């Protein structure tokens, strides 16, 4: 199958973030970056599908400045065949602009399947995947936790609150992947070397107008310090008392 995977470069979420002097962005100094978690599952899904179903092509695409090539090369070192950087000074806050640029690149690419992560772990919007599908006029299933492809048709599970649905749809289609999909393999050292020889194309991103701007980024208020109520089962009565009288949740 010809599969495209759209990936995003994000900072390590384990970081204790600080706000940049501008007040409208996170301070980037000293941050470590990687592919967004769900995007990694998407790349892995594509690789496994092509490994299982015979020869195919996995193309990874990322929008942003030149540093995103690092994440594209990581996908290449995992086993993707080709990479495209849609070059932009920064990743817009407006998902529709990103979707437009991606749709322009994906249009006419002959992809059987276009994969996204459910959401980027930094911006956490979950909009770009389904918007891109809509712009391409392709069927779309979001937040799937299983995906099977046979004879040009896909079956997927989508978890809802307290329930799940099994959906079926024809290819070509757009799918965004969630927990339950396979975790990203770590690149082998030979894969890292091989990635250097694989094609990585740079093209300008056709973003169009943006209608979302970041006015402010701030840290949430700190929680007040809590306390250890006691040790072992002996502490239970006191905990229950506090939950009743102080926290008033019981």
């Amino acid at each position, binding site marked *: 199958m010809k599969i495209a995977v759209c990936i995003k470069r994000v900072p390590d979420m384990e970081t204790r973030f600080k706000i940049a002097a501008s007040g409208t962005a996170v301070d980037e100094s*000293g941050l470590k970056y990687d592919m967004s978690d769900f995007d990694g599952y998407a790349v892995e899904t594509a690789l496994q599908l092509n490994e299982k179903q015979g020869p195919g092509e996995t193309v990874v695409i990322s929008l942003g400045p030149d540093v995103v090539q*690092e994440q594209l*090369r*990581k996908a290449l*070192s995992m086993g993707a065949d080709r990479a495209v950087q849609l070059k932009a000074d920064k990743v817009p806050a407006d998902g529709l602009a990103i979707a437009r640029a991606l749709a322009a690149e994906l249009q006419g690419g002959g992809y059987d399947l276009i994969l996204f992560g459910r959401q980027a772990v930094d911006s956490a919007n979950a909009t770009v995947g389904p918007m891109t599908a809509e712009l391409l006029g392709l069927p779309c299933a979001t937040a799937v936790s299983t995906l099977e492809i046979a004879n040009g048709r896909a079956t997927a599970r989508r978890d809802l609150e307290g329930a799940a649905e099994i959906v079926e749809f024809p290819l070509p289609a757009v799918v965004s992947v969630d927990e339950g999909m396979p975790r990203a393999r*770590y*690149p*082998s*050292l*030979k*894969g*890292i*070397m091989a990635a*250097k020889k694989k094609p990585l194309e740079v093209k300008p991103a056709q973003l169009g107008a943006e209608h979302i701007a970041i006015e402010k980024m701030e840290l949430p208020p700190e929680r007040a310090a809590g306390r250890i109520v006691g040790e072992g089962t002996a502490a239970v009565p006191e905990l229950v008392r506090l939950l009743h009288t102080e926290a008033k949740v019981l």
Partner: protein
Amino acid sequence: MQDFFDIDSALSEEERAVRASVRQFVDERIIPVIGDCYIEGRFPKEIIPGLAELGVFGANLPEEYGCAGLNNVSYGLIMQELERGDSGIRSFASVQGALVMYPIFTFGSEEQKKHYLPKMAAGEIIGCFGLTEPDYGSNPSGMITMAKEQADGSWVLNGAKMWITNGSQAKVAIVWAKTNGDKSDKSIRGFIVPTDTPGFTAKDQKGKLSLRASDTSELVFQDVHLPKDAILPKSGGIKSPLMCLTQARYGISWGVIGAAMACYEESLAYSTSRVMFDKPIGGFQLQQQRLAIMLTEIVKAQLVSLHLGRLKDAGKLTPQQVSLAKRNNCDMATDIAREARRLLGANGILAEYASMRHMANLESVYTYEGTHDIHTLILGQAVTGLSAFN
């Protein structure tokens, strides 16, 4: 660990990617099992296929022999990340890569290279390196293992080797022996010895309190017959095995940094959460001093090894430079592990914490591949021109 001195800016994207892959492998496959393996005294053989698939064995040897073809800084980073897990794991990789694959690559015939290297890279053939003997450790030139050439060009090997990592699991041993009764070290040649050859025995050395998650054996050769193509044709003299040691020592200088980093990270995390006298112990001056010293020594060691790697890639490395790095880095790592163990207090004696395991392991690393003292004399001789060896 925070990159305090922005050493990452001196690494290429590829080098950082290599480090990230090995780190992830160690975090997922080694760290969860290594504490138990250490206590049980067993090497986790089950990770060998994973390590091979990752491409760790002989990673700096060329792609044409099935290896990853990485540069020497990448190779060093691999050793660093493996030893962050455990010195025994890194020892396994050091032996396979620097002491088995390297001599075949450097001293072997094209046939030997084509036959062994791809399978060794794939972890299908595990090797060991037989140089040290029961009575000849720091002085390998004195070895008594002897190989006698027969009329038909085959060889008969007799002798014993000791402290051999991977000895019991190896399918082949690279054995260094003097030849044809000549007791001078000029007669030393290398031999590829399949371990199932009659007369070859390997016996686990039990009772170790260090490198417990590593296979350490004695090898005994009693009239071991070897075909004539067992010899490494380009080997000759003590220089040959010493070249292998230089390779391994280079990797070790990086590896111990990983162990030191693991101990430092563990200490730092502990010190910021462990509360005593109403504040985290990391707020007390003596603990801060420990942490400051650890950080400083790690940074210094990283810069030593990084520059050494660049020299190696430029073909300019000397064995004495490697001695400086091995000596310094092993010394600082053993100190850091011990200080970390102390910072952790009573908890530091539990296997649940890594520092004491690293501390015990590093005593072996301090001693093997040229003891600290030997490297001291190598440096002394290098700068004065005078030998203080005897």
